[in-house]
């Protein structure tokens, strides 16, 4: 089956300068593609091209395998775009949701049904008759979600939709979005600078730097194995794994990851499905059979060194302990310990170093979304 949305040999120029070059990109039916990159990398430009709002200087956009040139408006009416700022119009909430639907020629009866359904889905049905100017930021974002989903598009495009919100609201809305995406199975492309979001929602992630896509692949792979330093700095070159919280006591949350149990700091409202994030700097390495000194580090895992990357006076060591674990040590330590690929090693880290994040019920890393 042809990919839902594709770019071929696309080049975008602004005022003569090239800002985006994508030889090839496919978005598959039913998948969620996250696009991450630094500011000015071209993320928004990429999204605009996909949304058919910006015609590239060269190249083609394909929808369901066919070129869209010449019929942009009709294809645009089969997609939905959600931007960072809800940009609601000066009219009631219901009217705002109605605007897009109306422009797509949906008959009146169906229109009312959709508005009601989606406002309710995002918990803002009670605001239907309220002026859009008189609602809170979070509520406005919900209305924006309702507006996009009410269009019942074939493709959903999101441009850092929750970037302007505070953390708790963002978390909540992300959950709602994840839920809605799970229910509808919408093909989705969303731009974010938040790695956690990419991990939470994305089946695949595309990393874009300097107007070019440096890496595309399943989220876990990209995060675990960044292809170059640029990508690595973006994806954070951290250990990020999924786990299930099995216990919380005395401020410690114990998370089962594979066959290990990792202790991290407990937090209110942490669900069962969590992401464990660990910075390489926080991981200490020691020989597995070394005498274990008394230390406050609660976590100790055994694994095998799979890769060593020298970075100036530091070395990044990748360890396989049932899941990919990254450690960062000095070159001096590396040499003194005489570490080499294939060696058994023990890694320790404190509970404080373990960052626990809620993970949406949608997908676990490594699983492909079923269509």
């Amino acid at each position, binding site marked *: 089956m042809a990919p839902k949305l594709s770019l071929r040999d696309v080049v975008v120029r602004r005022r003569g300068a090239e800002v985006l070059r994508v030889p090839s990109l496919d978005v598959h039916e039913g998948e969620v593609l996250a696009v991450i990159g630094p500011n000015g990398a071209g993320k928004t430009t990429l999204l605009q091209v996909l*949304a058919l709002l910006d015609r590239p200087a060269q190249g083609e956009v394909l929808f369901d395998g066919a070129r869209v040139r010449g019929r942009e408006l009709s294809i*645009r009416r089969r*997609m*939905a*775009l959600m931007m960072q700022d809800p*940009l609601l119009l*000066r009219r*009631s909430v219901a009217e705002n949701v109605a*605007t897009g639907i109306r*422009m797509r020629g949906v008959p009146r009866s169906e229109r009312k049904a959709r508005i009601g359904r989606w406002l309710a889905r995002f918990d803002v049905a009670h605001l239907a008759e309220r002026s859009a100017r008189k609602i809170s930021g979070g509520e406005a974002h919900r209305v924006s979600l309702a507006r996009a989903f009410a269009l019942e598009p074939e493709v959903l495009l999101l441009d850092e939709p929750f970037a302007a919100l505070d953390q708790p609201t963002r978390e909540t809305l992300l959950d709602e979005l994840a839920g809605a995406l799970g229910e509808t199975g919408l093909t989705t492309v969303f731009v974010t600078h938040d790695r956690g979001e990419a991990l939470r929602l994305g089946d695949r992630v595309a990393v874009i730097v300097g107007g070019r896509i440096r890496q595309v692949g399943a989220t876990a792979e990209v995060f675990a194995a960044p292809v170059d330093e640029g990508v690595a700095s973006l994806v954070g070159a951290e250990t990020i794994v999924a786990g299930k919280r099995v216990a919380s006591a005395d401020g410690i949350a114990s998370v089962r990851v594979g066959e290990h149990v990792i202790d991290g700091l407990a937090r209110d409202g942490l669900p069962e499905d969590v992401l464990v994030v660990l910075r390489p700097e926080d991981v200490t390495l020691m020989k597995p059979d070394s005498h274990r000194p008394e230390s406050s580090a609660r976590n100790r895992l055994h694994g095998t060194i799979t890769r060593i990357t020298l970075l100036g006076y530091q070395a990044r060591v990748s360890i396989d302990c049932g899941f990919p674990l990254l450690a960062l040590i000095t070159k001096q330590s590396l040499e003194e310990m005489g570490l080499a690929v294939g060696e058994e090693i023990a890694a320790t880290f404190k509970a404080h170093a373990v960052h626990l994040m809620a993970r949406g019920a949608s997908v676990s890393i490594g699983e492909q979304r079923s269509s």
Partner: protein
Amino acid sequence: MDLIWDGLREAIHILRTGDNSVWSITLRSLLVSGSAVVISLVLGILGGAFLAFKDFRGRNILLSLVNTGMGLPPVAVGLIVAVILWRSGPLGQFRLIYTPAAMVIAQTIIAAPIVTGFTAAALRHLDPRLRTQLYALGASRMQMLWIVLWETKLPLMAAVMAGFGGAISEVGASMMVGGNLAGETRVLTTAVMLEVSRGDFPVAMALSIILLVLIFIVNAILTSVQQQEKM
């Protein structure tokens, strides 16, 4: 001061007795200036949208021209239009001089830059991403323009009021291209001039008061359209 009271009494008397000629002059003022404003609105919206949304070299020059146009002296406009429309002028064969149509033309030239300038300013104030969002929702260019106009209703109505005020208060150009012909091109402002030259001050004052009331009523209507929220 007596003159003003006399004028007020005269104005009430006129309105009560329903003098035909005054009603027809008032109606003509309204129609001529109203038409000029409507045409200016169409030109202003298209021109304003073009200036606000399209980025092109020389846009600033064009904007400056429009802003200059806002301050055009009406009498100069009247003279130029008259010279063009006279039989001895380039467009004489259309026999437009001394007709209401000529007055509409002159008043449009006076009002259009005002409406265009205000509209362009109002539209430029809009968040540019709003247009993107509207296109993304599936709007055609016309749909987008209509929605965006509703969003800028406030300054837009102000533009219309300013344009209307400029057109209906105008006397020099209307005199020159209209000729103040009884029953044909006499409007409130030119009628006032005539009554003053005849020394009939109470009637002149009455007409002025009627003109003020007319402007007030029109602005009141426009303000109510401007202020209502789409709720």
